[in-house]
Each structure stands twice: as structure tokens, then as C-alpha cells.
């Protein structure tokens, strides 16, 4: 990921992935975390779920050719719950996903995705259901996820999206890569540290 860049909208095909509480162990099984880089993780995205689907003679959406090249992932609620592994959004981003629209996201996943420039936006459950059903019937549907207008639009469908203002502003202004911003105020950081009794070894009287 090279950043930061401004991310105001994502356009592309939709990939509907049904199910609440899809955890990061499913997105990228732990055995693929035995690596010192994020390279190649996309090859193992949803690997066990996809294998299970094949065994059951069904097609996992990530194996469904009709959704090949999709850039917008559609999910239900609490997507990305579980472990804090950034490998999960990394695997999705490297697979080609550029935005995720869902009913809700786990806090850690939402933050991890934001840190690598992958916006997660929420929509009402009815809208998500309707869009999933539409995308399954019309798999080549292309949508535009507009972060400025907070709307998802396509020829046949549109709905409102939401996203915390801070996260949205960060994407739109290109400030989602935080390190530079945090590095900016080294003196203020030192000042805060020097006021914390545990940093100074409780040598001064406590400031209750």
C-alpha cells in the first residue's frame, strides 16, 4: 500500500458475502500469519470457507467467476470480529477490494482497514439485503461508493451510507496514514509523558 492518497469514491463491481459475525480467522486463517510480510495473503483469503463450500458442492462468492474483479465487498453485521490481525484487511485489499459496505463492522477491523486505505461504510440492513439480492441476480452490477456524498449509487439502485466523520474526513483529505501526523508533535508527546507519574517512577507527589 502506498499512501496517503485522497479516497473520495470507489467504483466497481460488487461482491455480496452473506453472514453476520464473519471473523478474521475466516477471512485469513491463522496458519497464514506465519510470515514476516503481507505479500501473497490474497491467495488465502477465505481459504477454509471456500474449501468447505467446494466440498458441499456450492460456490463461495470469492470463487464465483461472476464476481471476479469486484472492488466493493458487501457484508452483513459485525464483519471482521475477532483477532486484531491486520492481515485480514490486507488480504482483502490485495485481493482487489477497495471498499466494504456492510451493516456493521468490528471496531478493530474498521480501524485496521482505515489504516491501509480501505474504507468501511455502513448501510441499513434492508438496503444491504436489497443490494445483495440485486447483485446476486445482476452479478455484473457496477456501483459507485461515494465517500463525499455518503451514498452508494448504481443505475438501478441507490442508498445512503454512513461513516464516522473523522474516518471519512481522513479518507477525503488523504490523512488516513497517521504516522506522519503523530510524528508531528514529538515535544507535546514528551510533555504528556513527563506529567505521568508512572513514567517518572512516582518520584514526585501524585497529581490526584
Amino acid at each position, binding site marked *: 500500500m502506498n499512501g496517503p492518497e485522497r479516497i473520495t469514491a470507489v467504483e466497481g463491481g460488487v461482491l455480496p458475502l452473506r453472514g453476520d459475525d464473519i471473523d478474521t480467522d475466516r477471512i485469513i486463517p491463522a496458519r497464514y*500469519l506465519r510470515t*514476516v510480510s503481507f505479500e501473497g495473503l490474497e491467495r488465502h483469503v477465505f481459504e477454509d470457507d471456500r474449501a468447505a463450500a467446494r466440498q458441499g458442492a456450492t460456490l463461495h462468492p470469492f470463487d464465483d467467476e461472476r464476481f471476479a474483479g469486484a472492488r466493493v465487498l458487501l457484508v452483513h453485521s459485525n464483519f471482521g470480529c475477532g*483477532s486484531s490481525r*491486520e492481515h485480514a484487511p490486507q488480504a482483502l485489499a490485495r485481493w482487489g477490494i477497495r471498499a466494504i459496505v456492510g451493516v456493521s463492522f468490528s471496531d478493530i477491523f474498521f480501524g485496521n482497514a482505515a489504516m491501509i486505505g480501505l474504507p468501511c461504510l455502513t448501510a441499513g440492513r434492508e438496503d444491504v439485503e436489497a443490494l445483495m439480492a440485486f447483485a446476486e441476480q445482476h452479478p455484473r452490477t457496477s456501483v459507485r461508493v461515494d465517500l463525499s456524498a455518503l451514498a452508494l449509487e448504481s443505475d438501478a439502485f441507490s442508498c445512503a451510507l454512513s461513516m464516522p466523520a473523522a474516518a471519512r474526513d481522513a479518507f477525503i483529505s488523504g490523512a488516513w496514514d497517521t504516522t506522519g501526523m*503523530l*510524528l508531528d508533535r514529538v515535544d*507535546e508527546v514528551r510533555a*504528556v509523558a513527563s506529567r505521568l507519574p508512572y*513514567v517518572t517512577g512516582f518520584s514526585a507527589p501524585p497529581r490526584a
Partner: protein
Amino acid sequence: MGKTLLQKVWNLHTVRQLPTGQTQLFIGLHLVHEVTSPQAFETLRTRGWRVAFPERTFATVDHIVPTRERRRPFLDVLAEDMIAALERNCREFGVPLWNVGDRHQGIVHVIGPELGLTQPGMTIACGDSHTSTHGAFGAVAFGIGTSQVRDVLATQCVAIEPLKVRRIRVTGRLAPGVYAKDVILEIIRRLGVRGGVGYAYEYAGDTVERMSMDERMTVCNMSIEGGARVGYVNPDETTFAYLEGRPWAPPGEAFRRATAWWASLASDRDAAYDDDVEIRADDLTPVVTWGTNPGQSVRIDEPIPAASDAEALAYMGFEPGAPVRGQRIDVAFIGSCTNARLSDLREAARIIKGHRVAPHVKALVVPGSAGVQAAAEREGLDAVFRSAGFEWRNAGCSMCLGMNPDRLEGRQVCASSSNRNFKGRQGSPTGRTLLMSPAMVAAAALAGVVTDVREVLS
């Protein structure tokens, strides 16, 4: 209007409000392990940055460590690469590392408290979602991803959104055979696995106040399974007594000053909460999961609800309306950052002493740290476990997750004291996990089936 501990600690550590509206929050303690740090260190190296506060940064190895044969190089070349990378990174960036074979090595969330690194009033971050464990001390502790690990290494800060606070008051006495693990499983069952999204959980009430630090850690550990990134307990005399004399706790006169400061950080009586929940504990029973998320559980004497998630039932091979009690198990695992502390091992040993593991069950005990292991061995607990037919291993995350040689095979069913029963979590893509207290795991290991530990104890 009073303040909660979360608000007080948050304010003390706020560097500034960022233009994005997030808080730039100073991190008092950064714990590092081999899985989520290599890419972060690599960025520092590429950009020519240093670790900003190496004296507030500590590393150990836990996730990938083999718990039986630990000779180097590891047989798993990927694991060897990871530990070698951590060694090099810690050496190059001046971060202390407790490596395999060191007396302080262990699961990050076990060694932080054990060494007195974890203290009330700190902000604590680690690239692991179970960092919430440290909240047991009245710290504000949360898991972060690798990009945030990079930020904390380079700046000792994170950019983070403020959290709401839900107070969960647990009241009443726990019956014998009912443990802190049952309390948190019940909380997750009642509030759901998404109930805590956007919240910090403050655990309060007389049940929590009576809990030992080990028990409070078990409760706070699984906050994230309820969706809450942060869980904490207000610091009190139990907290201070635990910390006194630990290697990194303030010594002598400084400790007295520290306790005064720590006590001042507890939530005020008139603090306002965004939500308040009460849970009665006196009628609680052992709780066991039946499904593929930690909220899918039943009290041991209840059947699996008729209207349960069909996908989870199919994966687990369970029928709605069936009991979990009596379910045959293949593996019994006592370990993990949830339940591998000395008191957990003592309670499990008390149950198995003089008995034998069922012949078809593979049973293992993995102490949470080298310190826990040494203390347990001094008490002879290793002998108790071994003579009952348990394997006694070295410290690590082990079978909590499939990153080291300890894994389920095929569709094995594991009675596990760990924290996640996700599909494939324990290393086999079709493996099945039943979460329960370590005492319940011990009882299941002996019987070969899920058993109500209260019957064993009576």
C-alpha cells in the same frame, strides 16, 4: 458530574485532538510479539525511524512457539523466520526481548501483569485483540493492528476514536464450580458478540470486587469476544496487593505514592455511563459454547436452543434441542491468555488429582508463561497433571490458535479453556471448539464427555 476511569485515563494521556477528530493518545506500555510486529519494524527501518520510547516497549514470543520441542532452529521454517526477525528487530531497535528459554517468556497478556509491567492508570497497546486483559488492573488496554504497532513504535501514540462506557454490574456469590469464565461467557451470551462495539466495558459489582486478579483478567480478556475493544475493573486493594513486590512495580515509598494515584483513577460514584447493565451471578451455572462464536452458549443444564443458527449447528454437527452435556470430546486443552494462570492450573489439578484422563482423550496443559510453569512445578502440579495422563508443556499460545504445532486434526472436538470457538480456530479447518472454564475442561478430560464440574466437586 464525576468521571469514569476510562475518561480520566484517556484525558491524562491525550496529546491533542487530531485534525481528523480522533484523539492522539500516548501509550504507556507497548507489548510486542512476533506475529503482528515484523512489517511494522520493517517500515521503521525503511523510513529511518527509531523506536520513540524503547524503555516503554517490551517483547516476547508466544503465538508461534512450539510448546514441546523448542530447539532452534524450529522445525517450522516459517516460525523460525518470524522469531529470527523479532530477535533482529529487538536487537536493532533496542527493545528488550524475553525469548524462548528465558524465565520471563510467555503469553504477552500473562507476563505483563506477572512482571508488574501492567499497572493501573496506564494506556496499554499490543498487536493482539486480547490486550483487553490488562484492563483488570484499571488500565485502558486495547488491541491494535500492525499499522498502529508501527505508529506506537515510531511515536508512542495511536490515533483513536473515543469510546462509550457500559457499566456491567455483576452481583451475588458464585456457586462452587462456577468461575470467572462462566461470568464472562454469560455476559457475552446476554449482550451478544456485537453488543460491545463502540464501548469499553467497566466490570463492577460485588462479584467482581470479590474476584482475584487472575479472575478479573479472565473476565477482561474476553471483552473483545463481546465486541468491546476495552474492558476494565476499577483498581482496589486486591489490585495493589497483587502488584506489590513485582519486578516492575514501583518499590518502597514510590509504591505508596503509586497506590494513592491509582486509587484516585477509579470511576467516581457519580460518574455517568452511556449504558448500565446488571447481571445476577448467584444462580449462574457452568456455561459451555455449542456454536462457532463465543455468544453461542448454553448453561450446562440447558439444551441447545431450538431456534439456533443453522450454519453453526451444521458445522458443529449438533441438533437443536440436544444437550451439550454428554458430548464426546477428543481433546482437552487447558491454556491461553484467558485461563493459563497459576490459579487456573491449581483448580484444574484439584479436580483431576488421583484420576485418569479418559483413554480416547488427548489432554494437554500449557502454562501461560515460564513464570507460571516454574511456580506450578514448585507446587508439584506438573506431576499431578502428568500422572493423570495430561501432557505438561512449555509456555505459549499453543492450541488457542493454529499457528504452532499444537492443532486439532480433522473434525476433532476440543474442550478448551481458550477464548474463541470460531470455525477453524484451533488449526483444523473443520475442528470444533467447546469453550468452558479450565475446571470444566479438567472434568471433561476425565469423563471423555462434557460434564458438569459441580457434580465432580460435590
